[in-house]
C-alpha cells in the first residue's frame, strides 16, 4: 500500500469512525430502544478511540512524508451541497461538492488535539454520567461532536468544513440543553442556537463568495504557492475582505467573540465534562481554526486584518472585565477562555500563525482541565488558605489602580451587566426582527385559516360516534 493510499484510509477512518457508533445509536434511539449504559459507552469509546488511534498513525505518516500537505480525494457529491447553494447552481459552472480532506500542519495539529481531548473527556464521562437519565443521549451527541470536529479540522474545503461546523453546532446546542426540563439550560441552548444559526450564514456566504471569486472553495484550489501558513491567494483585496469578513462573522458566533459572545458564559448548563470539552477545549477554538485556515485570504486585505485584530482586542477587553466581576467558577472560566481566544485573533492579525497554533493547544488543554476540576474550587481555595495561614486577597487590577474611583465604579457596573450587550442586541436587532416575524406569522395564520377554515372540534361523545362509524 502506498503511503498516499494509507493516508487516504487513515484520514477516512479518523473522520468516519465516530459516525460508525453514532448512526446505529441514532437508529436505536429513534425506535425507542436505548441500549444499556455499557453498550452505549463502549461503542462510542471504541469508535472514537480507534479514530484517535488512526489520527495518531496519520500524524506519524505525515511526519515521515516530510510534513508536506497531503490532499485526499474521496469523490464528489454533485447537487448535494449544503442548502443555500441551490440559488447559485444556475451559474454557468456546475457546482461541485467535493469530499476532500487536507492533511497539513494546521489540520494535523488540530486533529491530534481533537483526538486526545475527546478521548480523555469520553473516559471521564463514563464515570461522571453513570446512572444519569440522559446517558445515552450524551454519548450519542458526544460521538456526533467528535466526528463533526474531525470533519471540521480535516476538511479540504469550506464546503465540507461547513458540514463539520454544523454538526459541532448541533451537538453543542443539544448538550447545553441536556437538562432540558429546567429553564436555564433550555434558554442557554436557544441562545446558542440562535447565535449559531445567524452567524453560520457567514461561513456559508464566505464559501459562496469564494466560489464566485476563486471558482472553488477548496483550500488547495483557492490558495497557491506553498503549504499553510505560507499559502497565498490571488483574490483582489476587496474580494478577500468580503470573504474574510464573512468568515470572521462565522467565527464570532462559534468562538463567542465580541459582540455576540455572551451566549457562552450562559452555556455552562450542561454536564461538566461537555462544558469542559466544548467551551474550554475544542468548539470554542473552532473559530480560531477557521480564521487560521483562511489566513491567506485575510492577509490579502489590510482592512480584514485590522477588523480581525480589533474584534480580538474588543473581545479580550470585554470578557476579561466581565469575567473579573464574576464569582462562580464556571462563568469565570468561560470569560477567561473567551479573553484568551480574543488574544488569539490579535495573533492572527499579526500573522503569528505558529505561535497561535501552539497557543491553541496549550490553552485547550488548560481550560479543559480547569473546567473538569471546577468542582474542586472550594477545596483548592481552602488548601491555599490553610497553607498560607491567611485569607488571600486579590490584588486590584491595573486599571483599578490608575483610573479614578467614580469611573471604575461605573465600569464595574457595566462589566457585571456584560456591557449591556444583550440588551442592546435585543433592542436594536432582535426586537425589530421579532416584530417582523410576528407580522409574518399573523399573515400566515390568516392565510391558512382562510384556506382551510377553522379546525373541527371533537368531544368524547363525538368520538363515540366516530368509533361507531368505523365499526359499521
Amino acid at each position, binding site marked *: 500500500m502506498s503511503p498516499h493510499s494509507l493516508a487516504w484510509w487513515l484520514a477516512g477512518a479518523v473522520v468516519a469512525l465516530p459516525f460508525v457508533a453514532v448512526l446505529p445509536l441514532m437508529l436505536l434511539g429513534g425506535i425507542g430502544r436505548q441500549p444499556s449504559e455499557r453498550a452505549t459507552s463502549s461503542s462510542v469509546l471504541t469508535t472514537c478511540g480507534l479514530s484517535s488511534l488512526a489520527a495518531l498513525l496519520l500524524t506519524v505518516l505525515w511526519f515521515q512524508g516530510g510534513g508536506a500537505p497531503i490532499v485526499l480525494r474521496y469523490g464528489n457529491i454533485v447537487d448535494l451541497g449544503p442548502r443555500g447553494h441551490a440559488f447559485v447552481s444556475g451559474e454557468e459552472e456546475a457546482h461541485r461538492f467535493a469530499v476532500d480532506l487536507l492533511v497539513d500542519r494546521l489540520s494535523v495539529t488540530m486533529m491530534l488535539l481533537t483526538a486526545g481531548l475527546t478521548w480523555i473527556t469520553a473516559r*471521564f464521562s463514563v464515570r461522571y454520567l453513570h446512572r444519569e437519565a440522559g446517558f445515552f443521549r450524551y454519548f450519542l451527541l458526544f460521538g456526533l461532536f467528535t466526528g463533526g470536529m474531525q470533519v471540521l479540522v480535516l476538511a479540504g474545503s469550506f464546503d465540507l468544513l461547513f458540514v463539520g461546523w454544523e454538526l459541532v453546532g448541533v451537538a453543542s446546542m443539544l448538550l447545553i440543553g441536556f437538562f432540558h426540563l429546567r429553564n436555564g439550560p433550555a434558554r442557554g441552548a436557544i441562545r446558542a442556537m440562535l447565535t449559531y444559526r445567524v452567524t453560520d450564514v457567514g461561513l456559508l456566504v464566505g464559501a459562496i463568495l469564494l466560489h464566485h471569486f476563486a471558482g472553488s472553495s477548496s483550500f488547495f484550489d483557492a490558495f497557491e504557492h506553498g503549504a499553510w501558513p505560507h499559502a497565498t491567494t490571488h483574490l483582489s483585496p476587496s474580494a478577500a475582505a468580503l470573504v474574510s469578513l464573512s468568515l470572521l462573522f462565522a467565527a464570532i458566533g462559534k468562538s463567542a467573540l465580541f459582540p455576540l459572545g455572551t451566549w457562552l458564559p450562559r452555556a455552562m448548563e450542561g454536564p461538566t465534562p461537555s462544558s469542559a470539552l466544548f467551551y474550554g477545549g475544542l468548539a470554542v477554538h473552532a473559530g480560531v481554526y477557521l480564521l487560521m485556515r483562511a489566513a491567506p485570504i485575510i492577509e490579502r486585505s489590510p482592512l480584514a486584518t485590522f477588523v480581525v485584530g480589533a474584534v480580538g482586542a474588543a473581545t479580550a477587553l470585554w470578557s476579561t472585565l466581565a469575567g*473579573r466581576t464574576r464569582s*462562580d467558577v464556571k462563568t469565570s472560566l468561560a470569560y477567561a477562555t473567551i479573553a484568551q481566544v480574543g488574544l488569539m485573533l490579535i495573533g492572527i492579525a499579526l500573522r503569528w500563525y505558529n505561535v497561535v497554533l*501552539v497557543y491553541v493547544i496549550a490553552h485547550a488543554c488548560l481550560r479543559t482541565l480547569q473546567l473538569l*476540576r471546577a*468542582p474542586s474550587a472550594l477545596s483548592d481555595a481552602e488548601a491555599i488558605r490553610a*497553607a498560607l495561614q491567611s485569607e488571600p486577597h486579590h490584588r*486590584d487590577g491595573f486599571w483599578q489602580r490608575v483610573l479614578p474611583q467614580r469611573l471604575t465604579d461605573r465600569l464595574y457596573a*457595566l462589566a457585571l451587566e456584560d456591557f449591556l450587550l444583550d440588551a442592546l442586541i435585543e433592542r436594536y436587532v432582535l426586537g425589530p426582527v421579532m416584530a417582523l416575524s410576528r407580522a409574518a406569522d399573523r399573515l400566515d395564520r390568516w392565510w391558512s385559516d382562510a384556506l382551510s377554515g377553522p379546525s373541527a372540534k371533537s368531544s368524547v361523545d363525538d*368520538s363515540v360516534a366516530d368509533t361507531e362509524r368505523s365499526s359499521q
Partner: protein
Amino acid sequence: MSGSHPSGDRAAALEHAIEHLRHALPAQGPIGTFVHHNTLHFLQHKPFHEAVREAHERTDAEPYFTEQRFREELAHGRIDGEDLEYALERYRARTARGWSEPIKPAAIERLVIEFGVRSAKKSEVEFLARERSLLARFRRDVPEDARARIIAETRRWILASDDATLDALAPHSNAAVLRQRLARDPEHAAVSALFAASRVVTRAVRSRPEPMLVRLGVDRTHRDVLRATVGDDPCERADLWIVRFLSVYLDERVARWSMPHRDHGMLAAATAQLSVGAAVRDPALAAAAAVFAKAPRGAARELIVDVLDELGVRPEHFSSYVERMVLALGGWAGMVSRLEGFPSDRAPDAPPVSLTEFIALRAVLDREHVRRSAEALGVTDLSKLGAALGARVQRSALDAPLVAAYRLFQLAQLAGLDAAGLLEAGPDHALSMLRVLDAFEPIERRRVFQEAYERKHLRMVLAGVADNLRAPADPAEGDPRFQVAFCIDDREEAIRRHFEELDPRYLTYGVAGFFGIAMDWSSIDDPQSLAQCPVVVTPQHVVREVATESHSRVFRQRQARRALAARARKAVSEGTGSLVRGVALTPVIGVMAAWTMVSRVLFPRLSERLGRWIRERFVPTPKTTLSTTRGALPAPAPEHELKPQGFTADERVTRVRATLEAIGLTHGFAPLVVLLGHGASTVNNPHHSAYECGACGGHNGGPNARAFAAMANDPDVREGLREGAIDIPDACWFVGGWHDTTTDAITLYDDDLPEKFQGAMDELRVALDSARARSAHERCRKFEHAPTRLTEAEALAHVEERAVDLSQARPELGHATNAVAVVGRRELTRGLFLDRRSFLVSYDPTLDQDSEVLERILAAVVPVGAGINLEYYFSTVDPDRWGAGTKLPHNLAALLGVQEGVSGDLRTGLPRQMTEIHEPVRLLCVVEATPEALLHVAGRKPEVLELVGNEWVRLVSLDPETRAMHVFEDGAFVRYEPDSIALPVHHRSEESYAGRMGSLPPAKITPQRSSAATEAAR
C-alpha cells in the same frame, strides 16, 4: 412610593412574615461545612405526616415516593399485601366515611391503592378516547376475572333488556349501537356501555372553583397564577438578575474585582447596579431601578408593604404570600438568611446582609415584571388580576362531570362492575363512591404506601433482632484481646462485623464519633479552628496540634514549603484567569495540564500515588502532640482566643468516664483499646463535608479519637477514674485513629505507644487490615462499576481509586440506605448482618438504673440520627426540590454553595448521586430499655420528645430482661410480636451478599472456626 410608614397591623404582619420566613427557608450554611439536618426542621413541632403535607401544599415538593414507584415496590415484594392492609386499616381508622354501593369503601380503597384511578383533564380524556381505545378496551391492568364478569353481565343485560331500558344510556349510547357491537366485539360493547353508564350517573357532579385562583394572594403569588394560566413565567428575568447580583454581592473571595460600595447594604448596591443603562435594558428592571432610587435609604419594609398592598395581599396572608414569593429562589434567600443569622461564619468586614432587603428586592422586581405581563393582558390594576384571569379559566369548570365519569369508569372496571350495576346504583351512590375516591386523594394514598413500606422494613428488622437474640451468635470466650470503639455511623456497621468475625475475643463498641470531647480543633496544617462536636454543642475548649520540640525545625520547614506550593497554585489559578499574565502562563501550564489530565483521568490511582510520593519527599511531617492538658504546653495562644486551651484534670476525668460509661466499658479492659473516628477523602467534590462525621460537625473525627486516647492514657486521669470505680490497668493502652469511609484506610496514632504493647499492636494491624479489606469488598457490591467478582485486594484498590478519581461522582455512597438505629448491648446485633444500614449505639441498661446514661445517649443520637436520616429521606423523595438535583451541572457560586449551571438557584440538600439507592424510611430506633424508661427520658428531653412524639423517628422499646417489644404508635407504646422466622445462617458476611446488589434482609453470621484457630485464640 407613598413614603408613609406602614400602618401598625401591616408592619406587624410583615414582621411576622419575615420571622416566619427565617425558619421556613433552607438552613444550610456555606457548603464547606455540611451538617445533616431535618430538611423540614421548621415543621418538626407537627406530626410527620401533617408536616410533609403542609410542606407539599406550600412548596409543591413531594412528600413521599410517587404512587408509581410504590406500586413497583409492591410488585417487587418490597411491600407485602399484609403491610398494605395494615396501612389501609390505619387510614380507615383515621377517616370518617359514608357508605356506598355496590362497591364498598374498603374495596374502593384497596383497588385505588393497588391499581390507581387516574384523574385527567377533559382534553386528555378526549385524546384517550380518540387515540387509545379508551371506550373500546379495558384498562390494561384490569384483572381477568373482572373483565370476564363485566363482559358476561353486559351480554346478559343487553340480551335481556328491551330497547327502552338500554336507552337509559342516552345520549351517550343507544340500544341499536350496543346490540350491534355485542355481536361483533363484546369487549367493546361492555366497555362503551360502562362509560356511558358512568356518564349517566355523574351528570349531577358540580365543579369546584379553580384552586389556583382561590389561593391567589394567599399562598400563591401573581407570578404562580400567571405561569399556570398564561404559560410564561413573568419573573424569569428577575430571577436571572437576582442570581447574578447575589452571587457577586455575597462573594468575599472569588471574584478578582469585588463589587464596590457594598457597605451600604444590599438594596443600595442593587440600586446602583440596576440603574446602569436604564435607557436600553429590560423595562421592568429599569422601572424597579426607578422605584429603588426614589425610596429613602432603609425603607425596605415600606417597599415590601407597598408591593403587597398594590397586589391586593391582605395582612393576614403576608406570611404565606411572602414565603411563596421568596421560595422561587429559596436557596439564595436561605443563604442570605443564614449569613445574616450567623455573622460569625463570615469575615468581620463582610458586606451586610439582610433578609428584609432581599425580600424588598424580590418583591419590587416581581411586581414590575408582573405588571408588564398584566398590561399585555390588558390589566392595569394588579389587585384585579385574579378576576381577569378567572374569566380565562372558567370554561374548564364545565368539564367536571366528564372527569368524574372517567374516574368512576376506571373504578367500575377494576371492581368488575358492569353498566347495569352502575345504573342500578344510581347517581347517589355514584356520588358517594366519588366521595370515597376524593377522600382517598393522592397524598393520603402515598401516606398509606409509605406506612406499608415502613411496616415491611420494621417487620424484617425486628424479626432479625428477635431471632438473633434467641441464639447469640458469638458468645465471648476468654479475655478480650481488643476493644475497638467506632462511631455509631451506619457506614461502620460492616467493618465492625468483619472485625468481630475474625475472633470471638475482638469486641467493638459504638459511640458518637466525637467521643464526648467537644473542642475547637486546629491542626498544624490549618490555623483555622473547627468545632469538633455535634452542631447542637458549642465547644468550650481549644485543642491544638503542636509539633514536638525536637521536631519544630521540621515543622517550620513543612510550613514554608506548603506556603511556597500554595503561592504557586494561587499564582497559576489567578494568572490563567487574567489577560496579560494568562498569555505568559498558558503555554507552560497548558503542557502541564495535558500531562495532568492524561494521568489523572486515565490512571487516577497511580498518579495519586506518584503525587503523594513527591509530596512526602517535598513536605516533611513532624511528630506532633495535642494540647489536651491545660497548661501542659505553653503553646502560643492567639491574643483574642477566649476559650481555655486544653482541659483541666477534672474535665478530662469527667469526659473519659462519661464515654466509657455510655458504652458500658467500665471493666475487663483489653490490652489495646482503640478509638476510631472517621472521615472521608474525596476529590472534585463540593459536597465533601457531607461524607464526613456528622457527630463531629461534618469534620474528620480522628482528632477527637486521638485526644480521647491521650486523656485516657494520662496517669492523672486514670487515677481520677479509679475514684469513680473505673480501674484501667497498666496493661491497657488507648490508641486513637480514624477510618476513612471512602478508601477503608485506617490511620492509627501510635507514635507514643509503649514498647510492651508493640506485639499486640502488630496483631491489631493485621486484624484491622483484614477487616477493612472485607469491608471494602462488601461495599463494592453496590458499585455498578466495580467488577461483580473481585478479591478483597481488588476491592481495596477499587475503593482507593474512587477516592482520587476526578470523574467519580460517587466516591462512596455516604449514608445512603440508612434506616435503623439500635441502642443497646452488642449482643443484640453481634453476628447479625445489617447491610450497613444501622447506626449502632452501645448502651448497657444493666449499668444504668436511673436512665441517666440513656438520657445522654438519646439526647445526642436521636437528633443526629434523625437529622441524617431525614435529610436523606427528603433529598430522596424530591431530589429536585429538597435535594440538590444531579451533580453534573453543579457550579460553585462564590464558594458558598452549588448552583445549577450558571443561572439556577443555590441548591441545598443532597445531590442525587448520594441518594439514588436510598430507601426513604424514617429511622427505626430500637432501644434496649423499657417503655417506662423511654417515656421518662422523653419527658425530660424535649428535643427527643418532639422527634419521637411526632413520629419523625419510629421508636421501638426492647425490654432488657423480658425481650418484649413495644412499638411507639399514635402516641403510645403498643405491644409488638415480631414475626417468627429463622434467619439464614452464614459463616462469613460475604456469603450473605455475594453477587447481589440491592438492599438485603438481615442474616446471621456464625463464624466457623477450625479447631486450630480456636486453640490459638486460647
